[in-house]
């Protein structure tokens, strides 16, 4: 059975901005699913609609077979957590890492917080030394690790990743992607990863959805993407553009 099922999702902001126009997909348990598109394609909005941060105008989002209500129940957030794009903006600048990590534990009534915080920092490769620091004392990569620790501390089953590495340098991106990959294997998590970078999605996800102008263009498996078996011209353009620049005469 599908872990997350999105069917005919529409998101309209205000009266005129139709950001998502009828997107449907299913993500099985333990699967890593990618959404690729350019800016304004609605890819992040789909993710935000799943976790209740964007209004669903019509269509449904199901988690584990059950349709989700708005606003979402606390139990949903215990199971589904999100990691945002910009680690500089997503951590409270005046909260220590300890406070960032203990807040979700307090909300969801976890006991032995002490141990869980230390464990969560350990899991993302930071160690106890970072516990009482402030975000401005950390580098971008370290902050993104904190954001991942904050999401993992509730032991969720699904992680929604919104461009988790696009604000990071290439070498740091590799470290964070490896971390996400390892955690998924260890804990059998389900991922939905949104990125503008086809290579990141191809590396991280078994299946992916290409979006443009709020619509799903096509769904591909990793193998078909690697074999360049895209059927839609837009996907082909995207594939070509990700290879870098080529002078016009031999294009």
């Amino acid at each position, binding site marked *: 059975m599908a872990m997350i099922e999105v069917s005919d999702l529409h998101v309209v902001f205000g009266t005129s901005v139709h950001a998502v126009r009828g997107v449907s997909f299913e993500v099985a348990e333990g699967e890593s699913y990618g959404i690729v598109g350019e800016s304004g394609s609605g890819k992040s909005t789909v993710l935000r609609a799943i976790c209740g941060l964007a209004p669903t105008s019509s269509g449904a989002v199901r988690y584990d077979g059950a349709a989700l209500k708005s606003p979402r129940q606390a139990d949903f957030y215990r199971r589904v957590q999100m990691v945002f794009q910009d680690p500089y903006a997503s951590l409270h600048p005046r909260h220590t890492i300890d406070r960032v990590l203990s807040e979700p534990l307090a909300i969801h009534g976890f006991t032995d917080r002490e141990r869980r915080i230390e464990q969560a920092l350990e899991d993302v490769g930071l160690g106890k030394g970072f516990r009482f620091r402030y975000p401005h004392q950390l580098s971008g990569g370290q902050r993104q690790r904190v954001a991942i620790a904050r999401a993992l501390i509730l032991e969720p089953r699904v992680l929604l990743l919104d461009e988790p590495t696009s604000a990071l340098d*290439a070498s740091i991106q*590799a470290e964070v*992607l490896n971390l996400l*990959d390892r955690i998924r294997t260890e804990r059998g998590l389900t991922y939905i990863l949104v990125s503008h970078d086809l290579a990141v999605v191809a*590396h991280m996800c078994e299946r992916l959805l290409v979006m443009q102008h709020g619509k799903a263009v096509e769904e591909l498996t990793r193998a078909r993407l690697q074999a360049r078996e895209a059927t839609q011209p837009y996907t082909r353009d*995207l594939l070509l*553009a990700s290879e*870098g620049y080529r002078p016009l005469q031999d294009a």
Partner: protein
Amino acid sequence: MSLLEVEDLRISFPTRQGPVEVVRGVTFSLGRERLGIVGESGSGKSQTGRAILGLTPPPGKATAKRLEFDGIDLRDASAARWRSLRGIRLSMVMQDPKFSLNPVMTIGRQLIEAARRTSSRSESKDRAMAMLEAVQIRDPARVFKAYPHELSGGMGQRAMIAMMLITEPDLLIADEPTSALDVTVQIEVLRILDRLVNERGMGLIFISHDLRLVSSFCDRVLVMYAGQVVEEVKASELKQAQHPYTQGLYNCLPRIEGGQRPLPVLQREAGWAV
């Protein structure tokens, strides 16, 4: 003959712990070609680009043994001399059109202001329109009358490029000119720059963090790490790069074809930054 000669460029910023050098002895020369400067954040690549235009932000100080543009010594250039060079013979395109265009002036007025540096009032308008066409804006008349907020990122960046090129500079410094753009738009903007280098014989310094893009676009690449150039390679030979930093940076990129899992991680060595 080379267009630009830079020898032992050093840029330092005063801090409470004493001056910190962010660029430490960069030397290169540029002909009428595409030179890429690649590095991670904090490697000093942008500061190098700014120093060539004398735009090191105070209290930073840039010094060099030699900094010559077309035979002109730029080190102690007077304000008047800079005025005669910047925007006319030397130009710069910045990363984000949102912050580098004047939000309360139409694109057309900004272009004419730039064009007026070298041509008469009557000529300027024609040149502005011609330039908008040259950067492949489909409806130049509309863009001419538009304010920056009415344009998309890709359009805004094209308008920026048009403004910087309207005086037909000999050297263009492009600092991450396409990083804020979508990949498909990015390729179109690069195509415009490429044509200008080929047709007008302009020199181009292309500063970017994207090794793959630079290696496919430029002729030559300088790889910077901790304020120094650790390696200079021909773009086509990047895969055979010698320095472990360049290799590490290239190998840690995920690939569509699939590659190693986990991705190889860059192991930094203290010796690189000495």
